[in-house]
């Protein structure tokens, strides 16, 4: 029941819980960010409009970009080879503005399942897929994925046979990773556009598989 909350004293007239006002004082780092940003604007290094435009650019990046890359890799052997050789260049050549991103593509097969994590922080191919999901940055995901990846996968609904090897990739330095999920069966006659709809964000992190049509 969506409105079946425990403490009815804290419900709004619409039946939803109130969210606490965010009126605590600024943290040290929030103050630092504002100070540096205002200085950069005052000194003419950047402008508020440029900062807003950059935020918009980042927000426009989405998993659908990666889905197009995967769908092309499934259908275009030359592109597939280029992607496995140098995923950053192959993606740039396809027309995606991913800046200087160093990207490695790892491919799932019947024998191998790849999974991406950043134990140190939250490294993620943002320039291609947009911002990572909140759980990707959680201590639980980061610590458990290197320790018990199969249990984590099971919680995402992915159960692998013992014969499939799990390869966890910890993005500890300069590389970013994209998983090329296995192409689902029964998709032989689908177009690249149709195939891209089967590629989920989680399938490119390795916590999911591509959808079956």
């Amino acid at each position, binding site marked *: 029941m969506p409105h079946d909350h425990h403490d009815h004293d804290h419900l709004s007239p619409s039946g939803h819980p109130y969210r606490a006002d965010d009126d605590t004082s600024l943290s040290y780092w929030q103050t630092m960010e504002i100070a540096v940003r205002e200085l950069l604007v005052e000194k003419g290094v950047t402008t508020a409009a440029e900062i807003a435009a950059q935020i918009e650019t980042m927000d426009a990046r989405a998993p659908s970009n990666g889905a197009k890359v995967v769908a092309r890799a499934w259908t275009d052997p030359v592109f597939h080879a280029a992607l496995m050789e140098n995923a950053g260049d192959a993606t740039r050549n396809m027309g995606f503005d991913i800046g200087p991103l*160093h990207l490695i593509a790892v491919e799932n097969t019947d024998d191998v399942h790849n999974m991406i994590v950043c*134990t*140190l922080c939250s490294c993620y191919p943002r320039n291609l897929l947009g911002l990572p999901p909140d759980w990707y940055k959680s201590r639980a995901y980061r610590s458990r994925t*290197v*320790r*018990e*990846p*199969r*249990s984590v996968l099971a919680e995402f609904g992915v159960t692998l046979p*013992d014969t499939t*090897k*799990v*390869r*966890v*990739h*910890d*993005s*500890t*330095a*300069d*590389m970013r990773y994209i998983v090329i999920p296995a192409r689902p069966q029964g998709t032989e006659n689908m177009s690249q556009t149709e195939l891209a709809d089967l590629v989920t964000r989680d399938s490119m992190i390795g916590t999911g598989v591509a959808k079956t049509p």
Partner: protein
Amino acid sequence: MTQYVRVKPMMPPGHVRTPMYLRGKIGVIERSLGAFPNPEDLAYGNTAQALPLHRVRFTMAQVWGADAEAPNDTLDAEIYEHWLEPADAP
């Protein structure tokens, strides 16, 4: 020929990008990635020397011992060369 390396069990102060859980562990170089500015200097705004970076592959058995969930599963991480030393097969 497979090249085994051990992650040096160093504990330097400051910003490093070698996870604690891999220090002292033995793996193989999966691929070498070229040279990248040392994050241990970059973190403090210092001039950073470009250092070779490698992807090292460890078995879960090597990382977690008898507690490994599946001993033959693997874990790859990017480790800077100054954190690696030659090792014998584990």
